[in-house]
């Protein structure tokens, strides 16, 4: 059986790689400080960066290593030294392929320490079978790491200040990363290989898509200067319950440069889907569609939809992801709805009417009561007529 050794096998990407490798029939040994996060089915060996290759790792001759472990806490050199030690052990044990997980920001003159450290490590891999994978902006999977942070941020406010929202990032779904790493572990390589979307998208667009697909919300991205953002990082660290944004991440983003990796992907036979498509495979996206259905059905019905009705809504949406719902009350904002939201509202209306709860809602009360309530609704709509007229203008313009 093929043997795969994964350092950091309990982490955000590591856990995913291990699970995928197991499914593909690898025997997997995960090296990490604790068993936490290591998928069932993998052998776990307690190990910390700096320790070299442990003796009880099993048969390392001809094995493949994917090295993901990164120590954020210690001084930067520790990562390089630790990797050096691991690599030496691997070479000594006759490991066949060594895949180092690097970053799109790896550069000698990177703005962030992380990028410089990753670049430094890449330089010590100089033999055949030793390859660095420069990974783009990873999204999907567990809501952790950078992805977890962006998820939280995009769901919190309608307006998000962000440095340099026009800068192109190259996102890649976590499963695509895992698959790419496993293909490298199988085939080996030399130098570096980019694992990221070949075409970049503006970071602001990425955030907007995330807000829509995961939270069903629209998002305005407000550009802010880097200096100001760094200050905000320091402040955010002091606000309780607010997700902390550290300077490293900001600098990492600000320093991202385009990475040509189309040829690499083609050589690996790896398909990297657009973010919308990738996000729709996620639980978060299904949850967002459920929330959307619940919100829109409740709005047209004036009562909570039952599970069957809700399920029908989700089915009718089909492969389409969540749509951005306005932050304000739908009663006011409906008039501003673009064609996609309007389509979903029509869908909700048609489904709601054709349901038992819809019939109950429409039948409730006496003829007089129903007419009185309808009149009230019309009066409210009448009051909001100027808003509608303005919205019609706005839409046309």
């Amino acid at each position, binding site marked *: 059986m093929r043997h795969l050794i994964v350092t950091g096998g309990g982490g955000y990407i590591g856990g995913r790689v291990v699970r995928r490798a197991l499914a593909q029939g690898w025997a997997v040994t995960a090296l990490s400080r604790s068993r936490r996060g290591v998928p069932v089915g993998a052998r776990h060996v307690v190990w910390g960066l700096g320790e070299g290759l442990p003796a009880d790792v099993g048969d390392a001759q001809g094995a493949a290593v994917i090295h993901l472990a990164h120590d954020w806490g210690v001084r930067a050199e520790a990562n390089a030294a630790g990797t050096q030690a691991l690599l030496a052990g691997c070479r000594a044990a006759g490991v066949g392929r060594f895949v180092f997980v690097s970053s799109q920001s790896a550069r000698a003159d990177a703005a962030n320490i992380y990028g410089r450290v990753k670049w430094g490590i890449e330089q010590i891999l100089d033999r055949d079978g030793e390859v660095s994978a420069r990974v783009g902006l990873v999204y999907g999977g567990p809501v952790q790491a950078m992805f977890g942070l962006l998820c939280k941020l995009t769901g919190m406010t309608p307006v998000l200040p962000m440095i340099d929202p026009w800068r192109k990032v190259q996102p890649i779904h976590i499963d695509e990363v895992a698959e790419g790493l496993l293909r490298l572990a199988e085939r080996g390589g030399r130098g570096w290989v980019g694992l990221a979307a070949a075409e970049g998208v503006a970071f602001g667009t990425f955030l907007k898509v995330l807000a829509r697909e995961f939270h069903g919300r629209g998002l305005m991205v407000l550009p802010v200067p880097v200096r100001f953002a760094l200050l905000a990082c320091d402040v955010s660290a002091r606000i309780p319950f607010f997700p902390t944004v550290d300077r490293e991440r900001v600098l990492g983003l600000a320093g991202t440069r385009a990475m040509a990796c189309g040829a690499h992907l083609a050589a690996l036979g790896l398909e990297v889907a657009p973010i919308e498509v990738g996000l729709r495979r996620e639980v978060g996206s299904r949850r967002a569609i459920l929330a959307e259905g619940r919100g829109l059905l409740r709005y047209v019905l004036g009562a909570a939809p039952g599970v*069957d009705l809700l399920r*029908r809504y989700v089915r*009718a949406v089909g492969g389409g992801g969540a749509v951005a719902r306005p932050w304000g009350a739908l009663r006011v904002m409906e008039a501003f709805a673009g064609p996609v939201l309007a389509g979903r509202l029509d869908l909700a*209306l048609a489904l709601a009417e054709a349901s038992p709860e819809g019939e*109950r809602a429409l039948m409730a009360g006496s003829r007089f009561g*129903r007419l009185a*309530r*309808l009149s009230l*609704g019309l009066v409210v*709509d009448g009051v909001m007529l100027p808003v509608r007229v303005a919205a019609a203008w706005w839409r046309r313009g």
Partner: protein
Amino acid sequence: MGEGVIIVGSGPAGVSAAWPLLQAGVAVTMLDADPGGALPAAPEGTMAGLRGNASRWQVQFGADLAGVAGRGALSPKLGMPLARAVLAGFEAGNRIGVDGFVSLGSLAAGGLSHIWGGAAAVYDAADLAGFPFGEAVLAPSYAAVMGRIGVSQVSGFSPPVGRVWAAAGRRPATDGFELEPARNAVLRADRDGRGGCVQCNLCLFGCHRGSIYHSDQELPALLAMPGFSYRRGARVVRVGVDAGRPVVALSGGEVVRGQRVLLACGTLATTGLVMRALGLARLRLLSNPVAAMAFVVPGLVGAGLPERGFSLGQLAFRLGIGGGVRAAGMLFAADGLPLSTFAGQMPVSRPVALRLARALAPALVLANCYLPGGFSDNAVVLEADGVRLVGRTTAAARAGLREAAQRLRRALAGLGAFAIPGSLTLAAPGADAHAAGTLPMGGDGPGGTDLTGAVSGLPGVHVVDGAALPALPARHYTLTIMANADRIARLLAVA
């Protein structure tokens, strides 16, 4: 194979052509394109019962929910599972492309008659102006067809329509506005295995009792006739002449020969076959410009929805719009329609629109109104791989429909039904489902046919559907298509 007559199409036209031939002892082979598989079953029970039913969504949108997207506000029927199945694959199957024209056609056994409105009109002398024969010639055929399919006049109305009709009885007719209970191909009593109408109001979804005529109902009786054979799944892709005799080629490559070939694929498909056979570059296509409009009878707003009803046309009207032009249309009730079909058009927020629609539904009178085909400006154009239907709404059609709407508004206001402002919708060409006149009988231009629908240049090939009608008055035309097919078949039976 086959020495008798080949009829292509089992819609109203094809079936009507088959009877006189068989009765005269001529062998008939009927082909239709139906790929097999049953159409969605018509729901049982009543609309009132369906309304709060947990499985209503399935009936309305289909188990795959595909119908929830809706198709055209003019006819909510077209979005229903039955209609989607009946219309499926027509354009691709007949190599028809469209440009501003709504192509309604069918590859199903029984064709469009599965979803038609059943409105059955007998053309009078004025309607037949432009035909190469008069009322007397068509009369026996009208009688034969009506006898077969069962045409009845509506007698029980939904409340708002009933009020209009009652008011009309009390007032003298206003200038040029005539109103009468609609004549539909609907049985009142059980007959020939079809049930009489019980006013279940599920017309939109298909008539489970078979009260509304469709031509598939006649197949068992046809199959019992000696000399009749019938093939499903026989899609004709080419018509031609071989050694002086007509032939048709099927999609599988098979060639079928007969003494004669009668084309009854529906106007659009038949036209395409003939144009491709003769290489005709461009033909005029008639349609009835049509508009829809909603009226409300105020006293019924907010009332409960009735237990029984009838979703086809209830009252038929005709009105003059000046210049000797006659428009015509139907009045319908809205108590059998999904509210979402009209809630979407109201300029209020959706929750209010839904409740408003529900309050209005028992009080609404919906009208459609047709202009004569002379107001249309469509063409069928031959292309490298098939034909293209090019539709255009003329300024005259727009003005004529507005004028007709104005007169209808005035007439109905006098009868207690008031037009809802902004409800007038002009439909795209073709949405009337009255395509006709491409291969006119008595026509001497390209594509002209003789009194028997015989196509010049294609000996033995006859057109017996709407394509052969030389004129298109503002009337429902299917009964006339059927009568004409019957008339042609009588002539051919003795030829």
